[in-house]
């Protein structure tokens, strides 16, 4: 292992924009450029640009690629039509989650698996071990792939001006090969913000020309609001509002997809064996012991990762009066720019009842259970 922190192909752009940089999963990444709240709001109301070149890209190719992936992950990638994408998971034999993934079917015999940066070595090793005996070739393309993402309701218009792909007719979770600013790219209507948006996979050297072309397209477009860059801080609050799990917070090797509320991604109905099938079938039958819930903070103090969730908290006219029993733990929490109140996701025991509170540094603050996601653009 090396401790070298890697730069993305857009490092110079981030410096030019005055970004606050942070180390994330071994990469030097932009945390924010100015106000992370403004960046968040730009995605919700217009559009913003993200550098996601730290993500891992692993190609699974060959005549056996689909069947090999069906064995390796808990979804059913061989059922995907060419040009479609699916959210799936790589599980351990005991059903624990090793990573959550997006799988794109780019051709009949080619799939692109996008992994979290921190998990890419594990995903690469597991896919190689699981798929290689099945007439599939596993190739780590992370080093030769850059990723620029435009997210927000105006993204389609801004990107359409610089691509030959017919984006308006591209469904959500679909993608296609085309050019962006004259450079070859795989463009997909996917993202991690709860907003419409596109991810542009391209050669590292093409990231900056594509970034600049999108910025110029936005500046000359009818909206005229420009296209701010957004960093990891905004990405985290956007995905949290959208109720999307983050590996290391909601997901991990000690969590099954059922506990995370993502049992739908486990395709026990697909034919043949797959890694984790036996354990996951047992988990599906017995039901989860804990469940992921959404909580709205009722004070202005913000729940954070690791804070205890209490239930049976006594309520008085002045607020909480009695400490409750610990029934769970906050996995992610933040002040929600869209809702204007603190929000959190938490694992709690399935039979735990409210009223709930969160132990925020020794003082219990009231919290209300709410359905996930916190924010849904279709509502």
């Amino acid at each position, binding site marked *: 292992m090396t401790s070298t922190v890697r730069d993305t192909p857009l490092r110079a752009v981030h410096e030019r924009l005055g970004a606050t940089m942070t180390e994330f999963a071994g990469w030097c990444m932009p945390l924010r450029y100015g106000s992370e709240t403004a960046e968040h709001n730009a995605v919700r109301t217009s559009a913003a640009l993200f550098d996601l070149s730290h993500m891992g890209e692993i190609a699974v190719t060959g005549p056996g690629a689909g069947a090999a992936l069906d064995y390796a992950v808990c979804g059913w990638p061989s059922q995907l039509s060419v040009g479609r994408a699916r959210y799936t998971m790589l599980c351990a034999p005991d059903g624990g989650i090793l990573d959550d993934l997006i799988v794109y079917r780019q051709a009949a015999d080619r799939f692109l698996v996008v992994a979290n940066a921190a998990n890419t070595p594990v995903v690469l090793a597991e896919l190689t071990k699981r798929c290689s005996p099945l007439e599939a070739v596993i190739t780590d393309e992370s080093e030769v792939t850059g990723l620029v993402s435009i997210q927000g309701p105006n993204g389609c218009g801004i990107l359409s001006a610089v691509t030959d792909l017919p984006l308006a007719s591209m469904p959500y979770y679909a993608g296609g090969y085309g050019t962006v600013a004259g450079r070859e790219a795989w463009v997909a209507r996917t993202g991690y913000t709860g907003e419409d948006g596109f991810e542009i996979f391209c050669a590292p050297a093409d990231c900056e020309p594509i970034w600049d072309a999108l910025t110029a397209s936005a500046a000359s477009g009818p909206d005229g609001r420009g296209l701010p860059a957004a960093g990891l*801080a905004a990405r*985290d609050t956007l995905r949290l509002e959208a109720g999307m799990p983050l590996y290391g917070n909601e997901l991990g090797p000690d969590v099954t997809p059922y506990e995370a509320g993502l049992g739908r991604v486990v395709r026990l109905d697909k034919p043949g064996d797959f890694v984790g099938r036996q354990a996951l079938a047992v988990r599906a039958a017995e039901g989860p012991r804990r469940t992921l819930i959404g909580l709205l903070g009722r004070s202005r*103090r*913000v729940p954070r990762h690791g804070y205890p969730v209490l239930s049976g908290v006594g309520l008085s006219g002045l607020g909480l009066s009695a400490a409750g029993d610990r029934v769970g733990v906050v996995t992610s929490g933040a002040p929600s720019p869209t809702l204007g109140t603190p929000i959190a996701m938490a694992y709690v025991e399935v039979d735990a009842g409210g009223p709930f509170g969160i132990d925020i540094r020794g003082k219990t603050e009231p919290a209300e259970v709410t359905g996930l996601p916190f924010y849904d653009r279709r509502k």
Partner: protein
Amino acid sequence: MSVPAELRYTQEHEWVAIDSGTATIGITDYATQALGDVVYVSLPEVGAAVTAGEPCGEVESTKSVSDLYAPVDGEVVEVNEELNDDPGLINAEPYGLGWMFRVRVTDGQTGTGLLSPTEYDALTKSAG
């Protein structure tokens, strides 16, 4: 990054302006840039006694929460109520409208242990 010459500073990235025995306190430009957008600040109550170096409130930003420390001994005489509705003032004007609270400094205290602008500037640079 701004470090006004007329102020004194603490290791905890607060600034202090002492005038006729009353200290006005806020957090520095460096602190706001490290924290990101401040969304809530919990301040001590007017009349509360505070002790130099002890926590007396907290500052919540998007990504983190930090304790607010009293830089001097004394009694809180005023808090910035505007911050309740607009905590963004702390990011926008950390040394102006974003001030946090005022303390009547205990007699005999001269603010020993506070940092000069030069010393504070060196502290932030050594922190990277």
